[in-house]
């Protein structure tokens, strides 16, 4: 089954206003740059975006934020850009903050068909307000619900035409679970090869989770905190 599409423009076919969408990446590491850039050129708006972070000024999801395409962010850590802060404080942008591991597991559960589960993170804090709680083994836990999306956008290092994906170093992060949790998952890769060329022993995301794949171009891979040994 060849899932290849030509480019980001062809890949985002079918995405419309007010959809729930997921973006892989941690900070700017492993974000689907091509897809974000292409979405930022469209008039699509009102999106509920599930992503650990929201890019920086003029890069990553910051591009879509500048265009007011995002209605709500579901994240664990935000505010690396001034426009985000302005929109949040003015009420233009709705923000739901979640513990990072809870966010990761809610996405994983969504892809794995588990509707809800209990975790200790956030119990006794404002994250727990309005959530069911229950004691297990003498410790309090919160009931957390699965997250899924109309579209999930992920970025991998290598991929094949069957949709199998391999990530590089810490660029895996949220990509693997989000690929599972999208009704339609679009993967962009730095190197697209014919099926059969990737060693099946080293696949991170099996192709079953990916509906469309394309060869990405012109990766910038911006670094947020360049830190060197002295």
């Amino acid at each position, binding site marked *: 089954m060849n899932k290849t599409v030509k480019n980001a423009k062809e890949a985002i076919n079918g995405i419309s206003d007010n959809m729930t969408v997921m973006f892989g990446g*941690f*900070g*700017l*590491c*492993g974000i689907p740059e091509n897809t974000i850039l292409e979405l930022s050129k469209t008039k699509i708006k009102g999106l509920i975006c599930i992503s*650990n972070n929201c890019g920086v000024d003029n890069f990553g999801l910051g591009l879509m934020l500048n265009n007011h395409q995002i209605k709500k962010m579901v*994240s*664990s*850590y*935000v*505010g*690396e850009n001034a426009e985000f*802060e302005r929109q*949040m404080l003015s009420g233009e942008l709705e923000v739901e*903050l979640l*513990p*990072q*591991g*809870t*966010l*990761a*597991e809610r*996405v*994983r559960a969504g892809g794995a068909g588990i509707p809800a589960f209990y*975790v*200790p*993170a*956030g*119990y*006794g*804090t*404002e*994250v727990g307000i309005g959530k069911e709680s229950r004691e297990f083994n003498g410790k309090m836990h919160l009931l957390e619900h699965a997250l899924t999306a109309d579209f999930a956008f992920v970025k991998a*290092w290598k991929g094949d035409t069957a949709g199998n994906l391999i*990530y*590089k*170093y*810490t*660029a*895996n*992060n*949220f*990509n*693997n*679970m989000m690929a599972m949790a999208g009704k339609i998952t679009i993967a962009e890769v730095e190197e697209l090869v014919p099926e059969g060329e990737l060693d099946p022993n080293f696949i*991170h995301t099996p192709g079953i989770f990916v509906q469309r794949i394309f060869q990405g171009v012109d990766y910038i*891979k*911006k*670094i*947020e*905190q*360049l*830190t*060197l*040994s002295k």
Partner: protein
Amino acid sequence: MALDKNQIAMRIARELHNGDYVNLGIGIPTLVANFIPEGIYVTLQSENGMLGMGPFPTMETVDADLINAGKQTITYLPGASFFDSATSFAMIRGGHVDITILGAFEVSEKGDIASWKVPGKLIKGMGGAMDLVASAKNIIVAMQHTNKEGQSKLLKECTLPLTGVNCVKRIVSDLAVLDVTDKGFKLLERAPGVSIEQIQKATEGTLIVEGEIPEIKF
């Protein structure tokens, strides 16, 4: 003399055991990696998806795909592994990470911690801190004993939004090493030249002083 940031990190490094898997937070906790005692081998976990974190890279070895949870460029050591965020937090939630070291704005005598949000100021989010404090087997907090106005940050009750409840086990501040017990903060060691009275004055929560309290030696 109160401890400086490096001395706090140096003291905390003595809490590490050979073979520990360790998660270090941003700020003073990151400095702990510089002071790991000779003969002690630990593996650093970074919650964005790696075990076996190494030092910062050189300009020649920088890779945008290799960062830590503070989004800083880093390297990896032999034996390292990379994985997705759900697996990373399974390690944390499942109790496989032995020790978590993080900073705090406030800690209460019951072991509650506030470290992520100051209402009225920019709210950036909790990141992985809530998951870490809710599940780590051992949590050590690195912090200043008082704020810039001299007010205590070791309190009866936290005043800021909480990161977690009843979870902090030990605190290493610029003035002292303390354990959180059922009865309050138990003073274990004091910074060189810092008196028990000074520590008492800087601690709003219940302070338990039993027997001789030794000075921290470097």
